[in-house]
């Protein structure tokens, strides 16, 4: 039993160890570096392909990347990007505007989306112009964060959708696939990278894991440098083993996690009932026990940490329905006609027992705990909630057709809260029960919100946008369309054994996610430890 632990030793030995990163939800890899494939090998859109710009939710800043600068037309109906000079593909070809045109053609053909986009035009070698069929301010980030593929390669592919692209040509820092095994592979430096001074690490090595358990074990054992997955009691399992070098940072910048109530049901139609239910649940306990204290309770804006600069402190201060107050909740329910009987169980005004299911996918064990805590909290005020945990597909199928009672659900996460609020409050996204929808599962719309959202899309003026958002937050806080629970934390832990330069709370130049657009920022900032 010697020499069997996975010590990073290999061909790249002369330049030091590779940056070893686990992938906890892929038990095996297949050599597929097609960025349009939903199952591309990890790091395809982080280290191989790059986007025009990068939005950093942790710092709230936008980093120009393949585009040096951009500007919107005054009418808001077009956007022009000026591409960076000197960028080359890893095969040595120049990065040109045609690449962007091709990318968007492929993207729209293969994966759809961008319905507001009219044309993508190469003005010259280094300038592209996007024109829109309507004013749509969030477009900047959507378009800007699309990873770009080389035209000279992809226009040759016969069936780009089914292309496995085993030896990708990209602009990213580490593009050269090496030693590909189903359980691991290496990405070596791009010989033609446009920022060679930032390629300080010998390469990236991905390890496949069938689940959190294995990946955590690897992290604890010090076999990986970066641990972007949920880890129970990370302080004692991981950090305490080597406090000098190990650290974690879980900024609450993920998507907001909501408990949604099907508002087409009579019992959830009244905002006061929704607020009462919200007040009845102990978010502190949820966060502490259900989420291992890795995030923070939600406030009345329903905005995750991702949107901190949009958050209106007044709205937060003004409302109380996200604070735990069982007595107030009981009172509210009494007022709404949901009175308790002799056995302490509440009934709806119609005299039916106030009881419902909380749906949650069986594989999300943390959310299962959350649902269980909610059920317990509700039990305390005489509301009977049953946790129903079939497979996620069944849960989501129920959400989509509106045939559910309540459920835990994630929400949209984009650079601006536009999509988030649109999905939660616009009437446009409300579909009848039985009709399939992919947003607004809880089926609540408000005309005021529609108007505000349209205004937001139409303006690129940041101050104006902020005002609109404040107004939306106020409406949200008034309606309580869903019960916000907590922002999803962005998992991330690291060790400085081999590499330094990690993003931290003090230096939030990126999050510690390995699947986010910001990942490339980390890859280009790390350097070998002394």
């Amino acid at each position, binding site marked *: 039993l010697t020499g069997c632990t996975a010590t990073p030793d290999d061909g790249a030995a002369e330049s030091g160890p590779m940056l070893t990163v686990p992938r906890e939800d892929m038990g095996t890899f297949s050599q597929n570096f097609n960025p349009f494939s939903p199952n591309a090998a990890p790091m395809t859109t982080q280290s191989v392909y790059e986007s025009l710009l990068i939005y950093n939710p942790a710092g709230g800043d936008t980093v120009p990347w393949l585009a040096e600068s951009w500007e919107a037309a005054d009418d808001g109906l077009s956007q022009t990007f000026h591409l960076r000079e000197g960028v080359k593909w890893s095969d040595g070809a120049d990065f040109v505007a045609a690449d962007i045109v091709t990318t968007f053609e492929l993207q729209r053909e293969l994966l759809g989306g961008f319905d507001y986009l009219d044309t993508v035009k190469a003005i010259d070698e280094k300038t592209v112009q996007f024109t829109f069929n309507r004013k749509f301010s969030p477009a900047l980030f959507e378009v800007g964060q699309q990873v770009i593929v080389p035209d000279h390669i992809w226009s040759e592919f016969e069936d780009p959708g089914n292309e496995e692209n085993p030896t990708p040509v990209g602009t990213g820092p580490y593009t050269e696939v090496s030693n590909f095994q189903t359980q691991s592979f290496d990405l070596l430096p791009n010989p033609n990278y446009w920022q060679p001074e930032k390629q300080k690490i010998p390469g990236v090595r991905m390890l496949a894991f069938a689940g*959190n358990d294995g990946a955590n074990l690897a992290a604890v054992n010090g076999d990986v440098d970066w641990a972007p997955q949920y880890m129970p009691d990370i302080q004692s399992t991981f950090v305490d083993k080597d406090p000098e070098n190990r650290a974690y940072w879980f900024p609450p910048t993920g998507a907001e996690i909501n408990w949604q109530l099907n508002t087409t049901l009579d019992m959830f139609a009244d905002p006061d009932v929704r607020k009462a239910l919200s007040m009845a649940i102990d978010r502190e*306990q949820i966060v502490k*026990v259900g989420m291992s204290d890795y995030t923070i309770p939600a406030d009345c804006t329903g905005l995750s940490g991702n949107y901190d600069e949009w958050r209106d402190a007044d709205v937060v201060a003004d409302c109380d329905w996200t604070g735990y107050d069982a007595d107030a909740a009981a009172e509210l329910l009494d007022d709404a006609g949901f009175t308790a009987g002799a056995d302490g169980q509440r009934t709806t005004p119609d005299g039916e027992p106030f009881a419902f299911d909380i749906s949650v996918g*069986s*594989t999300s*064990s943390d959310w299962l*705990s959350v649902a269980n805590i909610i059920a317990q909290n509700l039990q305390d005020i005489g509301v009977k909630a049953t946790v129903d945990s079939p497979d996620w597909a069944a849960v989501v199928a129920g959400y989509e057709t509106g045939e559910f009672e309540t459920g835990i659900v994630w929400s949209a996460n984009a650079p601006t809260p536009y999509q988030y609020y649109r999905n939660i409050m616009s009437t446009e996204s409300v579909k009848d029960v039985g009709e399939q929808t992919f947003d607004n599962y809880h089926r609540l719309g408000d005309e005021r919100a529609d108007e505000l959202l349209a205004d937001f899309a139409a303006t690129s003026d940041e101050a104006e946008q902020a005002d609109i958002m404040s107004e939306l937050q106020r409406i949200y806080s008034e309606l309580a369309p869903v019960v916000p629970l907590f922002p999803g934390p962005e998992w991330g832990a690291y060790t400085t054994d081999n590499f330094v330069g990690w993003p931290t709370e003090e230096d939030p130049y990126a999050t510690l996610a390995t699947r986010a657009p910001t990942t490339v920022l980390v890859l280009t900032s790390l350097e070998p430890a002394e």
Partner: protein
Amino acid sequence: MALAPPAPPSTGTAGPPPGRASLRFLRALGRNGKAVAGLAILAIFIALALLAPVLFPEDPSRIGSGGASAPGAEHWLGTTAKGQDVLALTVWGSRSSLFVGVIAGILATIVGIIVGLACAYFGKAVDDVLSLLTNVFLLLPGLPLLVILAAFMPPGLGTVIIVLVITGWAGSARVLRSQALSIRGKDYVAAALVTGERPLRIMLREILPNMASIVMTTLLGSVIGAIGAQAGLEFLGLGDANTISWGTNLFWASTDGSLMLGQWWIFAPSGLAIALVAFALAMCNYAVDEITNPRLRKPRRAASANAPTAVTQGAQA
């Protein structure tokens, strides 16, 4: 959920009329060390399962505030990461695990009996078709099938039971069929036919009672299989995470990373409980084997199989 204790062998579907035969069987069971040990362990678990609401009246799954704590005076087996009492979880877990195991085992055995009897009695085409089906099900890899089946049915004990029966009946059927087949060939079945007995009566009153011990062993075997398979399914997260059972306890132990945190007291009890119950059932099984096949019994003294006949000391006149 009412938990029925496994029927004592004499009143099972296949018991001979309460006469001397079954009494003798029971007495033999009482004298067999393996059976006594197995039954004792089973009795303890059944008692715990029945008494769970008395011993731990509170909802054992209630999520508390404090994190995991090691075994101590207050919590004999410690608490989980969610502050639940491990002992309570284990004791409550026995209800669902035993219930599912026993029910699925019984159902699988019943299916096995029906198939076995039908094969044996009707023979020919019925036998061909049914035994082909049995063999196909036997050859299909069980757990993968289980995983696929469990994934497409709504969660709940019912599903787990159905799935376990679907994948578990074939094993029983094969054994029972061959046994029934050999009994079918016995003259007393032909004699009953010649007497003019109806088919159903022949199957149930002539053939079945003579399979009692083999029904017992397959039943015990199916129960063991069902308990283990249920645990496996739940461990993979394919069971119903809301019921408390040994499998879900292990599922939670593993998702909460209790082993990595060195919290063995969360991980160990349910696994041990499964092992103990399976062990107890296996012991009963061997006891039944030994009673029906005296050769398997432990000889009074160790001897190699071809040792020459023992001669009592001083026998020679």
